[in-house]
């Protein structure tokens, strides 16, 4: 066998199949460029697009590149923009049952021109439903909205909410306290349409002291924004007002959840009178209404990670995710700690997301 043949056979080898059905709760499909959206953008905003420079929200030049090096496309298009490659590298390689598409397009984080934001979100939905969501039975979708103008978000939720493959409304972490009553009609609409609220960090997330100097700092502490949002949603009464609201916190970590529950309960016991609409201990809302995606999973002592799940007092809060095609991708075969039992792994890989998103059993899992 020549060297080249040896190389090809090595790369083509299928990853050892996971023993569990898998729902990947964070998969980033991409446009090749903003031009993809032009057919779906109406005037006056179509004219704006002649001058589009993006909204330049990531404050850092990525020091090592934002995607898996093996997801870079030969034609130079952005990783995640080719269905065939995504199918091969993720869906087929790991035998994924469902992949929830979360995009990488965040007009929801624009700090100005909210009507344009709403138009872009709407155009993105039109584009990606046709070009991604309906292309593969395994894809499930997120409705992109502009929460800056909640009434436009409601219109988008009503437009797409009955699409059989739409499972959530995507909201950004880090730009606004979305538990504020100003945004409540979004939760009302999502509840009415039986959709999860998926919250994924936007690139404009800042930290307790603003913008840290280095990317590695930012990427480490952006969990702060997820903590803040969980507290904000609970204490502004979203779950008391709309008890059917379910929130998936995507890519924000989860090892902070126990301490946040403890601290929020501790404060609530003394300060309940300030938020009398909150009827139960805050930790109970976390357990009932929130789920957390696993990627990027930390890798401490595996025993400690198991204890962390025990401290969450529920084995139903975690949902597996890969974050394909990004640089911090978690492999289905290699990322969960060795200390997790088969029963716990099955819940994280499949059952928890299936139940939370209220999905029918996948054909494979039903076998």
């Amino acid at each position, binding site marked *: *066998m020549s*060297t080249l043949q*040896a*190389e090809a*056979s*090595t*790369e083509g080898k299928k990853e050892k199949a996971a023993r569990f059905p898998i729902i990947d709760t964070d998969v980033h499909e991409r446009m090749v460029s903003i031009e993809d959206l032009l057919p779906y953008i109406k005037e006056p905003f179509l004219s704006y697009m002649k001058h589009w420079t993006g909204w330049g929200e990531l404050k850092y030049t990525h020091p*090592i*590149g934002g995607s*898996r*090096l*093996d997801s870079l496309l030969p034609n130079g298009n952005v990783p995640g923009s080719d269905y065939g490659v995504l199918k091969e590298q993720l869906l087929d390689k790991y035998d994924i049952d469902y992949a929830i598409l979360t995009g990488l397009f965040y007009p929801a984080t624009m700090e100005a021109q909210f009507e344009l934001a709403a138009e872009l979100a709407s155009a993105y939905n039109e584009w990606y439903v046709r070009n991604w969501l309906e292309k593969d039975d395994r894809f499930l979708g997120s409705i992109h909205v502009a929460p800056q103008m909640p009434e436009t978000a409601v219109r988008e939720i009503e437009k797409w909410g009955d699409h059989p493959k739409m499972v959530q409304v995507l909201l950004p972490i880090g730009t606004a306290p979305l538990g504020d009553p100003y945004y409540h009609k979004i939760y009302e609409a999502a509840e009415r349409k039986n959709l999860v609220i998926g919250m994924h960090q936007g690139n404009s997330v800042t930290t307790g002291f603003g913008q840290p100097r280095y990317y590695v700092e930012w990427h480490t502490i952006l969990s702060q924004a997820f903590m803040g949002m969980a507290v904000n949603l609970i204490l502004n009464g979203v779950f008391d007002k709309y008890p059917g609201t379910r929130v998936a916190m995507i890519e924000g970590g989860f090892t902070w959840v126990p301490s946040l529950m403890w601290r929020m309960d501790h404060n609530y016991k003394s300060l309940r009178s300030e938020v009398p609409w909150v009827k139960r201990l805050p930790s109970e809302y976390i357990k009932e209404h929130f789920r957390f995606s696993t990627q990027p999973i930390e*890798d401490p002592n595996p025993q400690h990670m198991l204890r962390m799940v025990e401290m969450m007092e529920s084995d139903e809060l975690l949902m597996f995710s890969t974050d394909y095609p990004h*640089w*911090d*991708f*978690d*492999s289905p*075969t*290699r*990322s969960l700690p060795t200390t997790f039992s088969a029963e716990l792994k099955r819940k994280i890989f499949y059952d928890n997301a299936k139940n939370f998103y209220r999905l029918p059993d996948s054909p494979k899992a039903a076998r």
Partner: protein
Amino acid sequence: MNRMVVCGSEEMAPGQKRAVQVGSRSVVLVRLGSGEYCALMNACPHQGAPLSDGELTGTTLPSTVGEYVYGKDDQVLRCPWHRWEFDVTSGHALFNDRRACVKRYEVTVEEGNVVIHY
């Protein structure tokens, strides 16, 4: 110990890498700028990504605050996924954790061939 000829000694230019199959294992063969060869197991100890899909590069060396000293040109193999960095001459990760280490294989050049010993 087994040995296997994997390529001719001038097939690869300095600064190149490739995956080679050696027995039942995949190995990443690297040619340093000096012309010497190194070989590592072709799997990152973190999550198993094939290191041959990564980049052979230099990197910043330990320095004082605010100072960047670039070195180890074409001696650092960076994993294609999480970009863990490994010194190909030792197999050790560049962060200080002895558990993060890739198995090294002895490589010799014999009669115009690159030979991996395993």
